[in-house]
């Protein structure tokens, strides 16, 4: 897989090399500072950003005039099932969970990612250029398995880096727990980490043990999907006791332990639309949860339950807008869907800001990207302008003439 990824990157880099370009007239939210640069020129060479400045572009380079529009880095969805699910109720299009064989912590979704999923086209047309696609509960709870980082090129492989984080789910939802009490789930998780810690170099390796060792060795974060305050306190304790990196997915009641999460450097991938007591684990859900977490210093990213795959891009933009409406600063709203996910998964060296050396994943917007009525006008993935055509736009274009004829 690594080899394939390398090949894909090489080919695309070569293609991008032919497309050196610059964007002029940008209102550039670089996310390296809290304010935008107006009338900025962004130069992209060989797929990388080489400069962001108010100076005119180099001669003889293709120029895209942003016309004063907002320009941001590509968005990153931090917890999606892109490439793993196309139509959730059609089992033939669903590959996000193991039921037998390679299940548990060692389950690894990288081998199932479908780059031709129409959901990927839509996510890209909504400005998403990076995504973390993750598994759901396996037959060996609380473990779900490892997620893969996707780079949403149009054509070719999209798996950029597998095994970015190991996911577990801790809750009292009987639907996804065959072991019963959440206490048993925490005990199973601790026992598995104990075993991984105690492993000797000569021990037999299994997919499970490799995944667990990668957590205790600090190579990847443990992403815990959980919501209730008591479980969030357990997660904080787990991070402390094992010295591991922990990320929370969900965290409906995280605002109640915001300071402790910040002190433990635990990031939260929150659902910014969660404000109803949907379950007994989420009684404390409230719309200003992301804002309260950010105020306490917690790194906050966005994933909206239920729509994280088929509306990957639009949903996180709307969600970030809603977080801003409920007290988060605008720039932190942008960060929550761009640079914060990059930091959570350790790819901020190449993605998440408009700065020299970063990948040329850049989006020009027709309005405010946090207004869900806005959309991209241009999306660049590693310096290459990608098509914004989706199955949906083709359906629209097929039926629009008849609609316009009726209107007259």
């Amino acid at each position: 897989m690594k080899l394939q990824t390398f090949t894909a990157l090489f080919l695309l880099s070569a293609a991008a090399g032919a497309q050196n370009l610059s964007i002029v007239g940008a209102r550039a939210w670089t996310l390296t500072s809290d304010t935008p640069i107006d009338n900025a020129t962004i130069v992209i060479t060989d797929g990388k950003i080489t400069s962001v400045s108010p100076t005119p572009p180099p001669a003889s380079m293709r120029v895209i005039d942003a016309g004063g529009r907002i320009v941001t880095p590509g968005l990153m969805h931090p917890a999606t099932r892109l490439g793993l699910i196309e139509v959730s109720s059609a089992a033939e299009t669903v590959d996000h969970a193991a039921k037998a064989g390679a299940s548990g912590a060692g389950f690894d979704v990288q081998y199932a990612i479908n780059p031709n999923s129409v959901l990927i086209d839509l996510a890209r047309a909504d400005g998403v250029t990076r995504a973390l696609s993750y598994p759901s509960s396996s037959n060996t709870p609380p473990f779900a398995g490892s997620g893969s980082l996707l780079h949403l090129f149009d054509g070719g492989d999209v798996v950029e880096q597998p095994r970015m984080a190991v996911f577990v789910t801790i809750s009292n939802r009987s639907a996804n727990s065959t072991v019963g009490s959440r206490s048993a789930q925490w005990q199973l998780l601790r026992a598995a980490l104990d075993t991984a810690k105690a492993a000797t170099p000569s021990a037999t390796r299994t997919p499970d043990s490799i995944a667990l060792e990668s957590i205790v060795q600090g190579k990847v974060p443990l992403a815990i999907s959980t919501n209730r305050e008591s479980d969030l306190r357990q997660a904080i304790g787990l991070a402390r006791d094992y010295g591991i990196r922990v990320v929370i997915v969900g965290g409906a009641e995280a605002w109640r332990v915001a300071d402790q999460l910040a002190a433990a450097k635990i990031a939260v991938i929150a659902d910014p639309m969660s404000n109803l007591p949907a379950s007994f684990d989420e009684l404390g859900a409230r719309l200003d949860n992301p804002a309260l977490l950010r105020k306490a210093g917690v790194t906050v990213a966005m994933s909206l339950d239920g729509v994280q795959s088929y509306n990957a891009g639009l949903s996180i933009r709307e969600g970030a807008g809603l977080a801003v409406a409920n007290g988060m600063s605008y720039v932190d709203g942008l960060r929550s869907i761009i640079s914060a996910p990059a930091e959570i998964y350790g790819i901020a060296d190449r993605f998440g800001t408009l700065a020299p050396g970063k990948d040329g994943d850049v989006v020009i917007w027709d309005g405010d990207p946090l207004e869900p009525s806005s959309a991209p006008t241009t999306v660049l993935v590693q310096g290459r302008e990608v098509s914004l055509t989706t199955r949906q736009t083709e359906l629209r274009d097929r039926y629009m003439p008849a609609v316009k004829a009726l209107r007259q």
Partner: protein
Amino acid sequence: MTRRLLRGLGHVGVVLIAAVAGTSAQAARPEPPFTIDPYPSTYQPLPRTDTLIVDVTILDGAGGRMDQGEILLRDGRIAAVGHGLPRDNVTVVQGKGRWVTPGIIDIHSHNGTYVLPLTSLDRKASDVSETSDPNVADTWVEHAVNPQDPAFAVALRSGVTTIQVLPGSTPLFAGRSVVVKPVPATNVRAMKFPGAVQALKMSCGENAKSFFGDKEEAPNSRQGEIAIIREALLRAQEYREEWHQYSRGKSKKPPQRDLKLDTLAAVLDGDIPVHMHCYRASDMSAMMGVAQEFGFKIAAFHHATEAYKIPAQLKQAGTCVAVWSDWWGFKMELQDAIRENAAMSDAAGVCTMMHSDSPVVGQRLQIEAAKAAGAGRRGGLNLPPEHVITWVTSVPAKVLRLGDRIGTIAAGFNADLVLWSGEPFSIYTKADRVFIDGAQVYDSAEPARSPESDFGLGRPEMGGRQ
């Protein structure tokens, strides 16, 4: 006439029938009992004062816009809209450039029947619909509605003033809806919109055939679904005829009451509008054929993700559509959903509205409209805000047959209003104040007085009422 019974004379109707049946009197034969409401509304408006809202941008819900306008609320009604209105004996609300729209109407909700928090009990048997049979036209969803569902208060705080609670889409004939105001109450009758008609929820497509088919019961195909629907409507034709014969004095003995056939006969009479869950163009087309065969109109298709493919047919049938902006991807039958659906249907002349089907989406129907309009504008359609607001105000009001009472800001209409913190289609905008029948039922400046379900008491973790 039968509709008049629903407007509060229901109990009188019951008495009449009992009396007539007992004495065989020829003189005053009762109307057929199809739409008698034995459980009429007991709703009382909350305490109110006459109010003048000044310096606001008004989207009147019917396509009009007025800048720096004023609205006078008197005795629960809108008394005047304009400039320089009299200020004596009224509470003046300074709009300071904010926006006012009619209260948002959610024509498709399950609030009160899928009560939060969900538990395993709800997963086994929720109250969204009775699912023991594909025809449960005899069920009335109001008998399940729990006013303590926290979703009601959240809807109210986000500017929703009228909600139609529909049964679910598992049965083909899923039962009668109820229209409510999301005000604090201990029983549904205190929430019922006085005089609002009930609707019949129907469904087509995957849901019924999958659910009953999985149990080795009928239907297990689309054609099986339609056969069951036609059979039931044939029986309803006979039942209706028997009752009309009796009412006209042409037969002596009243027909035996049948609650399912009451509902279907009322559909055939046009007194109970049909709200039908359908996605595919082919399914909607088949159902419009059935409606034509039996001589009734489908008031609205709900979800209707492929409405944009058949606008001419929908327009001709006079059938509206209630749609999402961007929900799709979870079933094969809605894989052709596009965000332009509402805008394209609307542009082609189909009466179009947004719906929620969800307590989450139900807090932001104006944002649903904004997303759908944004997609439409990118497709070249002209959609000014004063038009887009109709999708969540006057259009659903008309479909609920309340178009002369709510959904529009004009003299004589109920004073159901939202004062928004800004332009209502922006994600950053919130409902600052909400009025129902002239009573201020929510004020964002006074969170401690916000309505909240009894469920929230004694649960400090539920935090701020926001």
